[in-house]
């Protein structure tokens, strides 16, 4: 099996890897880098459990080949915390009861993260659209939507207090 050399940044750290040509980004994260937070739910890009943020956009890692991420900047759920401080999204998911079995949670967080990075003050409709590719079988989405909304408001008030941009 051919290998492809790639260089990419994952959660702020640079990696140089030699990946088999048929390795997906999902398997690269989980197996090559040991980042098992990103989940495999369907392997066909329908459930969103494998969502990561790549070059600022939410993508299904099961539909990207590792070979395609050369030069890319990738954020996974493991990269949301900063110095042990939870991202407002993570905090709000806990606070608003948005987590049950947790399997959809990493993907949900990443779709939400990509949303808030581009649109810091989304409407409820915009939130629902942003997570419409993330299936959840447990929560009925209502508390998830509330959590994402709360995270956006929180970001705003924190920004006000600290006067800085809290982007990733």
């Amino acid at each position, binding site marked *: 099996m*051919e290998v492809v050399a790639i260089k990419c940044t994952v959660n702020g750290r640079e990696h140089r890897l030699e990946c088999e040509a048929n390795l*997906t980004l999902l398997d690269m994260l989980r197996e090559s880098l040991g980042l098992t937070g990103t989940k495999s739910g369907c392997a066909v*890009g329908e459930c969103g459990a494998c969502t990561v943020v790549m070059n600022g956009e939410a993508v*299904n890692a099961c*539909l990207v*080949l590792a070979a395609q991420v*050369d030069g890319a900047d990738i954020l996974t759920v493991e990269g949301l915390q900063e110095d042990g401080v939870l991202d407002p999204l993570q905090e709000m998911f806990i606070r608003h009861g948005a987590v049950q079995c947790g399997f959809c949670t990493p993907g949900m967080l990443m779709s939400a993260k990509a949303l808030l990075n581009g649109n810091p003050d989304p409407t409820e409709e915009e939130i629902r659209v942003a*997570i*419409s*590719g993330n299936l959840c079988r447990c929560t009925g989405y209502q508390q998830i939507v509330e959590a994402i909304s709360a995270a956006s408001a929180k970001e705003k008030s924190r920004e006000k207090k600290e006067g800085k941009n809290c982007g990733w």
Partner: protein
Amino acid sequence: MIRPLKYRRMRSIEETCSALMVLGPSARVLAGGTDLIVSLRGAEPKEDVILLDIGTIPGLGEIREEERALVIGSLASFAQIALSPLVRQLASPLAGAAARMGNPQVRNRATIGGNICNASPCADSVPALIALDARLHFVSTEGEHLLPVEETIDGPYSTTVPHDALLTDIVIPKLPAGALTSYVRLARRQAAAKARMAVAVVLVPDEKGNLVDVRIGCGSVTPRPHRMRKAEGRLLGSVPTDERLAASATDVAAEMIQETGIRWSTEYKEPAVKALTRRALREALGWD
């Protein structure tokens, strides 16, 4: 598990065309990958596959306005297309289709070129491109050519395009002033569902309200996507009325049945496509 394959990163259109010609049918163009990668799942290879990744070829993903046309690079993603002010202004049905295709993650990766060349019967860009009279710009080692969409897709998952030609641009002629457009889509749920049926419409009225151009493109209706000319003819040259719209919608349904025969789904699709067509026409006219 993706089957074993080979991978090559392409740096230019020329390199890609060369490789396609030299490597033959085992070479497959990889753009967004959202269809291709799913199709490559499985443990046992039947034949070699060499992926030619065109994703980083510069300039292939641009959306630009030319004097008489909107030109969309084949690598433009559905997300880009949905959000593009140019597309919304000059090819609104395509922007509408792009916004509802797949799901947000897929829209960020899936390209219009891949969507067209995959030629799924429910390909989301196709009805709009047909109604917009889009032409596809192909490049191969033998030169370039421009093909109307209608002449490109000849059946489910089948195109007339030679294997070694690369789709580089989608050229959408600008609509005349006063043109009215719409796009309606029917799916089984509110998001992340393939189009059960879709209708895109372009109407051009003259100063008196007579329709001098009528274009209707449908998705998941006929095996080969094409303009519904009989239905269009029904409305051409006159001021649209409720009855004419209904008759035109009936024509679409009849054309569908003529081409597909009576299938298991016809009992549903016939009334539904009639309703969708009428709705698309009314929406374009601003009647609802």
